[in-house]
């Protein structure tokens, strides 16, 4: 059984994500140290918390994560997890993992913020992670910031809420989702299943 390790920033709910990953066939553990991450076939950065404390928690495992990614181990970032793949965030100080060039900015305008609820994915590039997902499929969002990658070729899906923003990025074995697949019903489950397929092949 492929082993997925969820990195724990120390706040909130990881159970929903753990159950969803188990449902698609992973053995799942929660990790806090480089040693915990060493045995992983897949790494997951979850989506609960805020940038500055999470970036601080990541400092001690930064190298371990970067090494795993170089080895080719798939890395999935969800919401805040995705935002940590960028260099910096308007949410606060701290350095991200910089797998993607660019920064994370705030949603602005005459809108209810956080962007909370179900919105659609506009598929802009074919990607295995979205196999079997139709353009216009609904997924669950809850966020106040979004990523702005410098390299447009990493953008997989876009979503519109006032502005049209990047809602998924992929570069080789690094996958980032601004929405929560573990809270997105069957569509989310399909995306996690695709991730499992990528990990287990």
């Amino acid at each position, binding site marked *: 059984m492929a082993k997925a390790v969820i990195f724990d920033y120390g*706040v909130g709910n990881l159970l929903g994500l753990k159950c969803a990953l188990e449902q698609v066939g992973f053995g799942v553990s929660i990790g806090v140290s480089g040693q915990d991450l060493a045995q992983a076939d897949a790494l997951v950065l979850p989506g609960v918390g805020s940038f500055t404390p999470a970036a601080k928690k990541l400092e001690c495992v930064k190298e371990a994560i970067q090494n795993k990614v170089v080895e080719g181990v798939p890395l999935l970032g969800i919401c805040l997890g995705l935002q940590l793949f960028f260099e910096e965030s308007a949410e606060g100080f701290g350095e991200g993992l910089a797998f993607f060039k660019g920064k994370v900015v705030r949603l602005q305008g005459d809108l209810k913020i956080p962007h909370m*609820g179900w919105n659609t994915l506009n598929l802009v590039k074919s990607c295995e992670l979205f196999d079997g997902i139709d353009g*216009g499929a609904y997924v669950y969002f809850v966020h106040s910031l979004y990523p702005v990658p410098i390299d447009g070729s990493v953008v997989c899906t876009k979503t519109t*809420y006032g502005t049209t923003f990047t809602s998924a990025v992929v570069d080789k074995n690094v996958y980032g989702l601004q929405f*929560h697949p*573990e809270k*997105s019903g069957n569509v989310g489950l399909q995306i996690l299943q695709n991730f499992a397929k990528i990990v287990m092949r």
Partner: protein
Amino acid sequence: MPLTKRIIPCLDVDHGKVVKGVNFLQLKRAGDPVELAKRYSDEGADELVFLDITASHEKRDILRHYVEGVAKTINIPFTVGGGIRNVTDARNVLCSGADKISVNTAAVEKPEIITELADVFGQQCIVVAIDAKRNLSPTEGKVTVQTDEGSVWFEVTTYGGRKSTGIDAVAWALQAEKLGAGEFLVTSMDKDGTESGFDIELTRAISEHVHVPVIASGGAGVPQHFVDVLTTGKADAALAASVFHYNKYPVPVVKDYLCKAGVAIRQ
């Protein structure tokens, strides 16, 4: 395609059993929160709310047990409320698998709890529930609204509507938003349980003043009520219990109706 409006079934749970609005003919099926949660999730509910009304010292263990049960069963977001008074209570519920926590009386009595919770768990995690009642006696300094009953303001109540506070619900919402509320769950104590429609004026008054999402609650009886509160009432989401428990208007029927009425809905 825009952000859709959310339809949220609510489970009022006492000692691990759904108690409110249950059709006694279906007690066996409707009584178990985990089973009901699964049914609603499968039927296309956009989110779930659990309000724990257990008033006893074994509360914490019961709560943990069923929150975990639900978290393992569904894959849509869910909020847990009822007696959360501090960061420890909130952490227990969130670590058991809830995505958001809802605070009500504790926040009215000690508003700074909202900031404490938002600082630890993030603003998106904190739902402030407001139980409001129409007050017809004119009072200076309150946000008044013209209704078919004349000029009213909305008064915050606590302890499940038993205690009137004299606080203006709109002013309270604005204060709570500043303190870190990520969402409001606004229940009309006048409409709750009547199935005569949501309090449109109450919902709109709060929704127009705050910049975070508003869930309307109390009074849902027929699908048109959902249309009214999500359009005229400017709610971002609508919550109901008995219409769904009774199976009178299952979630897909309500969503279908909303869709035909032109409301953006996930189907």
